[in-house]
């Protein structure tokens, strides 16, 4: 009897979930403009997704306080994709079936690609504040994609020019973390170095994230005689490698990307972080609007803005502004507005080019000085 009880309960549970599903699925479209926000909102990459969502909420509250757009209130629908491509398709389908007009997202390039195919078919515009893969705009396959962050090849170019022209170094080791972002960036860097003819790549390999020890790779770089390392990847690996190098007494210049241009890197690597170079979005803190956003964010959430908060804020503004300018939620009209009308954001006055990249958004080089990232002019 007991056994069959358990089984009955499983059956009932399955049926119940189906019923609740049916109810939740049959949402009625209210008269609002729906802004979907998608990205990693849980798990280990949540620290990239949540600040964007929080920034978007600020924009929406602001807009709604002023009476909304086209006479309608704006509503945020947020969905988690954990930065995984296969989950991102579910997330995207969910947003589409909930009738969003535009999507702010996704966070990771890998998850953005499959989601965009779905948005494209459903005639929905997506704008990312953090997906930097050059493919997204340069392949020309995603006419519905825009972003408020510059792409990785711009970053790689800056890193290479900095190493070859500013620092006048010749032998470069290129290292990456085998990930989508890191390896892509490393390959662009390698390509630029080889094309420039001013330097040579003496080492090109990937490290396994999370390995217990990186001494073998560090020793190998030392043997290669590299004067500088260009690293593509995120800060946990970067801090481990930098620490191990400096402890071994290596003075090799370390240049990295915006995955490393994060204060956590300095906190974790401590004194070993001094002198590390990293590219990051141009410092806009002199912009009064940027300052206002940072203050508001701190006031509302009790914490400092996250990595991509400002880009997320700008993206939400650009999207809502375009709907306003287009005068409707028509797909083509919004795209046209995004491409022609400038909008005032914390990143400066921006509009978008034909491929979807924001005009006037770029990268600068930063150096760690006295425990802080300082922009190099």
């Amino acid at each position, binding site marked *: 009897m007991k056994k069959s009880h358990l089984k009955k309960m499983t059956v009932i549970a399955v049926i119940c979930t189906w019923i609740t599903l049916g109810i939740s699925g049959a949402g009625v479209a209210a008269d609002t403009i729906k802004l979907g926000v998608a990205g990693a909102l849980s798990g280990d990459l949540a620290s990239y997704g949540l600040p964007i969502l929080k920034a978007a909420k600020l924009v929406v509250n602001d807009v709604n306080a002023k009476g909304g757009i086209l006479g309608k209130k704006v509503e945020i629908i947020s969905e988690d994709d954990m930065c995984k491509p296969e989950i991102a398709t579910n997330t995207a389908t969910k947003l589409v079936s909930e009738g969003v007009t535009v999507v702010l997202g996704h966070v990771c390039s890998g998850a953005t690609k499959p989601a965009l195919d779905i948005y494209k078919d459903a005639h929905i515009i997506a704008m990312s504040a953090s997906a930097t893969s050059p493919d997204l705009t340069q392949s020309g396959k995603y006419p519905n994609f825009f972003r408020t962050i510059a792409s990785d090849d711009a970053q790689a170019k800056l890193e290479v020019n900095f190493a070859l022209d500013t620092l006048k170094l010749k032998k470069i080791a290129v290292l990456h973390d085998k990930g989508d972002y890191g390896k892509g960036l490393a390959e662009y860097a390698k390509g630029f170095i080889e094309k420039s003819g001013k330097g040579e790549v003496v080492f090109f390999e990937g490290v396994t994230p999370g390995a217990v020890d990186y001494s*073998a790779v560090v020793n190998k770089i030392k043997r290669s005689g590299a004067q500088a390392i260009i690293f593509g990847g995120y800060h946990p690996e970067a801090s481990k490698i930098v620490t191990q190098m400096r402890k071994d007494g290596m003075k090799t210049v370390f240049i990295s990307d915006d995955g490393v241009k994060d204060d956590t890197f300095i906190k974790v690597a401590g004194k070993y972080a001094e002198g590390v170079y990293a590219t990051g979005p141009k410092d806009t803190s002199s912009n009064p609007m940027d300052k206002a956003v940072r203050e508001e964010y701190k006031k509302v959430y009790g914490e400092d803005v996250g990595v991509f908060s400002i880009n997320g804020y700008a993206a939400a503004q650009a999207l809502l502004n375009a709907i306003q300018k287009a005068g409707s939620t028509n797909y083509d009209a919004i795209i046209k507005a995004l491409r022609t009308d400038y909008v005032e954001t914390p990143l400066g006055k921006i509009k978008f080019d034909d491929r979807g990249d924001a005009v006037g958004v770029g990268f600068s080089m930063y150096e760690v000085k006295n425990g802080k990232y300082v922009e190099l002019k």
Partner: protein
Amino acid sequence: MEYFLELFMGGLIRGSIYALIALGYTMVYGIIELINFAHGEIYMIGAFTALIVASVLAVMGVHQLAILAIAMLAAIVYSSAYGFTVEKIAYKPLRHAPRLSPLISAIGMSIFLQNYVLLAQTSDFLPFPSLIPDFKFLEPYSSILRPTELVILLTTGVVMLLLTLLIKFTKIGKAMRATAQDRTMALLVGVNVNQVISITFVIGSALAAIGGVLIASHIGQINFFIGFIAGIKAFTAAVLGGIGSVPGAVLGSFVLGLTESFATGYVSSDYEDVFAFALLVLILIFRPGGLLGKSSTQKV
């Protein structure tokens, strides 16, 4: 030559860490034939406990060596307690279940513990304080052997020795060997099998905690996911050496650590894991019981 030595030492360090975790796998497997997937998480919890205790003590302004001792002790106590509890919750009720059920329970436990630490603490990487003091006499050799590395090697050596003595010469060691050979028979001659299993989990977890603290202070940062990657590698090492065999786990760990180090140094770090797993497959094809595993005779 210096390059070779550097790689060799790097391999030994990796091997020592793998060994401390692999011993837990192999001991548990020897006794109840279970791949304890949650073992990597015990190691992670050890590292986290040490980090928390050390930070609290540092704020209170305790001496560095005292911090090291207390943090290590706390890590050992808590890891053992977690190991003990995990066994009671997830494995003990399954003693007589089909063979694969405890394995799935272990995978579930591993997911649970990871997320428990993620939620209660943070998903970010936390900097781990360097608890091990700098020895001045090592400075000339810093590229080959650093203080933390020396401590790791010494500790691993001492721990192995103690463990061997425990298993060979104490009463509980005898009981463990008896249970590993034949659980029913051990029960018949008056061995408290449940207690032996608990003690095995406690010892294995304590070893993992030592490994956790050492590697965390060597590499300088931890997050909730470190247990998974180290766990898979240590498990591979245990099988490589012959799962169930204590010296086998140690040998397997060093073989694996050195292979990875040399593969990175002389070939490419892109394929270091491929080399590690390919080695495993090759060794098992030619020695299906692992390097030091018992050549199991099939019982009919």
